């Protein structure tokens, strides 16, 4: 029986904007299991990124609890949250968030330099098919290539958790598949618990479980009997 890596109970998140309050999450109970490949879908504005940020320790819920194994993230200090991100979480952001003044390789090194057992930056970039673009700056890469650098950066630390916010959003089909293959491989080979946000319905076929968010709450949860390999996904 796989253990949950992440557990949330009654998580709400309210954004205060002056007098207006936006309730982005309204009581989410959710688990991410060991080695699981989870896909998170839902309409724009349904709260996917908000939930992902909370899971990754980038944000705190307004109410409710989040546990990483035995550690209660909602009670962790900022310092502990940083350690959590540094040692356990690999992020792929919707907007790549690369350092513009660093090359592809250096952007990956930024992470490998501070983690315990990373893979070499060159190897991580080779995994995403960028072995020829090591010394290029973000401004010299296409949007898709930038996203692949972001993927390399996330997996290079061999994280326990891989959180991906629309990793293929800006990519064409071919580079999208490359990215998905890498994520799948990390999930399979390293047993990394993986959560992927996507608007591409076909990608759900890769998942072992698909969770749908609607208006800040979990609307539907579905288990896939058989997972499709990334190479067979078409959109």
């Amino acid at each position, binding site marked *: 029986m796989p253990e949950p890596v992440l557990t949330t109970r009654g998580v709400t998140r309210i954004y205060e904007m002056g007098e207006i309050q936006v309730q982005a999450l309204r009581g989410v109970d959710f688990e991410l299991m060991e080695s699981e490949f989870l896909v998170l879908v839902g309409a724009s504005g349904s709260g996917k990124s908000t939930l992902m940020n909370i899971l990754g320790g980038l944000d705190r819920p307004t109410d409710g609890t989040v546990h990483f194994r035995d550690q209660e993230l909602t009670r962790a200090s900022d310092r502990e949250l940083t350690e959590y991100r540094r040692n356990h979480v690999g992020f792929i952001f919707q907007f790549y968030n690369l*350092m513009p003044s660093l090359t592809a390789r250096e952007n990956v090194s930024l992470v490998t330099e501070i983690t315990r057992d990373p893979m070499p930056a060159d190897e991580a970039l080779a995994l995403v098919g960028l072995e020829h673009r090591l010394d290029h700056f973000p401004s010299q890469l296409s949007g898709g290539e930038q996203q692949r650098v972001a993927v390399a950066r996330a997996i290079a630390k061999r994280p326990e958790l891989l959180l991906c916010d629309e990793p293929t959003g800006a990519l064409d089909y071919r580079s999208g598949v490359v990215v998905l293959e890498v994520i799948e491989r990390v999930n399979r080979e390293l047993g990394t618990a993986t959560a992927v946000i996507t608007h591409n319905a076909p990608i759900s076929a890769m998942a072992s479980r698909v969770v749908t968010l609607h208006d800040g709450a979990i609307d539907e949860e579905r288990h896939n009997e058989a997972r499709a390999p990334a190479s067979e996904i078409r959109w």
Partner: protein
Amino acid sequence: MRFSPSALDRKLIRDLKGMLGQGITISLVVAAGISGFLTLRATYSSLLESRDQYYEEYRFGDVFAQLDRAPESVAERMESVPGVALVHTRVAESARILMEGPAQSPQALILSLPPGGDAPLNQVLLREGRWPGAGESDEALLLDTFAERWEVAAGDTLGVVMNGALRSVRITGLATSPEFIYPMPPGGALIPDDERFAVLWMDRRGMAPIFRMEGAFNDVVVRMNPGALEREVLAGIDGVLEPYGGRGAVGRDLQPSNFILDGELEQLRQFSTVVPIIFLGVAAFLLNMVLSRLLHLQRTQVAALKALGYHDSEVGLHYLKMTLGVVIAGSVLGVVLGWYLGRAMTLFYGNFFGFPILEFRMGWRAPLAGILIAGGAGVIGAFTALRKILALSPAEAMSPEPPARYRPTLPERMGLGRLVGPMGRMVLRELGRRPLRTGLSALGIALAIAIVVVGRFSEDAMNYLMEEQFYRAWRENVTVAFAGPTPERAIREIAALPGVAHAEGMRVTSVRMYAGHRWRDVPLQGYPDEARLRQLLDADGRLRPFPDEGVVITEKLGEVLGIAPGDSVRVTLREGRPGEATLRITGTVDEMLGMQGHMRMSELNALLAEGPVVSQALVQIDPRDVDALEARLMEWPGVLDVASRDALVERFREQSAEMLTVMTLILTLFASVIAAGVVYNNARVAVSMRERDLASLRVLGFSRREISTVLLGEMGVQVLIAIPPGLWIGHRLCVWIAGTVDPERYRLPVVLSAETYGFAVSVILVAATASALLVRRKLDRLDLIGVLKTRE
């Protein structure tokens, strides 16, 4: 494995390279602030040190006295006055030197030298040549400033009228002494004179017979024991010398040369304490502002680093290095520049004062303080901004800043919107949306304008003072001094000379004015009832009437002695019937130059128990006839001196105003650098902040010109709204500075010239235009795709 910097350090190096222009200008602001601070501080303290060493090494006396004549044995009695350590007696006589060319012969003070020239006090510094021979009555040393002015060299022979007889004197050498740093003619002159005042040092045994002063002295220099009370020593010496016609001993503070030197150093002190602090403060404020904005731009990068698992401390260190990189570069440059300029300025002033010893010292405290203040302000600025970003959760910091809520600005609501068009509206809204930032930018620019104004203030003050004093208050262009009281008839004779438009007499006498134990030697000036040439002006340029009765004194004199209108003061007279008298003070006037008393001539004549006599003639004459008048008057018996106003003004300018010119130049330079640095950085940060908006506008089809208009319009408005408060702040700072300095000799009126205001505005406008061009170039190269492709 070869050494390679961490990825974060690489980012640091590249980021610094990427903002090279900004980095350099910020460094320059720091450098200008620090070096301005150091230059003035180090110059002042080095000059003070050099003066003290000069005084010490050449044994400058503490107390000075003159008398009619006393036998040498009186010296012993002065030595036994409590507090007196050493007494040096001299013979001091006045003479005239006949120089080729000009009609008037310069005045000379002849001082006796002990055998071998080695005076125990007020030692003479032989600059070149040799000492006069023992017992020689026709050899002398000549004061170097006079020699330089008249191009007299060692070995030359001068004709000197001593005790009524013309003698040829061989100049064996050129010399000076601590008592003649400023050559002040005797008789309470206000302005040093290196042209018509000379000092000759002669061997005492050779000189005494000429003046029948064998075995006697008429001048004393005294050194006090450390800790002795000057007041008591002065009283003791006066007591001993009283029967010998003692004219009252004075301390160092009133020794004429030192009095002027103190005034000049006081002015330097004011500039070296208040002004550098203003500069440093402004530089610090600007650094704080610029760095906090620069850091604000790094918002998403800070958030991303945090998201990747970097601790706040690591991120903080990264940006600390970035800030320190800029600050340290500026500090090093500032210290080096400060040292260099400080040394140059010390040399300049040292030569100006004629100090034989010049010690330049900067120490480590001032540089450290400068670096800590400027650097600290920069680091604090960067870190306030950083702390705000770090306080956000990474998720929040990474998300774009919430779209701004724009609303119509005041001018638009007043209906001006339609006048300015859509671009103008964008400018107004952008400025109105962030009133705090707009305000701070404007304040920064205003401060920059203000220090440019401050830099030029003292020069303006000096020019105003000269204009008012020498041209408005005095309307004569030649002053004739008579050797003694002269019948008024002489004025009518002068008035009849060719070219003379108007002449009137004046009676001037020097009195010592007492208030309690404080006193000052003060010229009393008596004006004829129908005086037309002299006017009484106060510092605001207002005309004041001469008193109907009693004495109107300089306000400063009232302050120093603690006397006010209505008081009666005790004075000792030196002319007429010597003795004491009481004067009634009937008013004060806030004069800018000197300390004196003004009264009716008839009243002064009565006070001195004399008939209607004058001691000076004021002459208004066609400038072309001045030389002829001088030549003619110098042949009159009883004429002591003929002085033209232009020569006087020229001397004043050389002595006091020129000293300010160098300072003004340096301050203006630094202020301009600071101003330009601020304007440029403001503009650059604005570009970075609005890059995306502007790129989007371009994509929407706006031309380069149009988007430049938006940004440059913002800059222009900020600069324009900064100008009036900038000038106002500059004026306030000058008022403040003027309040902190208070030499007795003159006061600095805060009258800023239109040129100064114009210059300050021009500096800012030039800096703004240059920045605008750079920004324009930057905008023309705006990489539309690149900017829009990478989010924030």
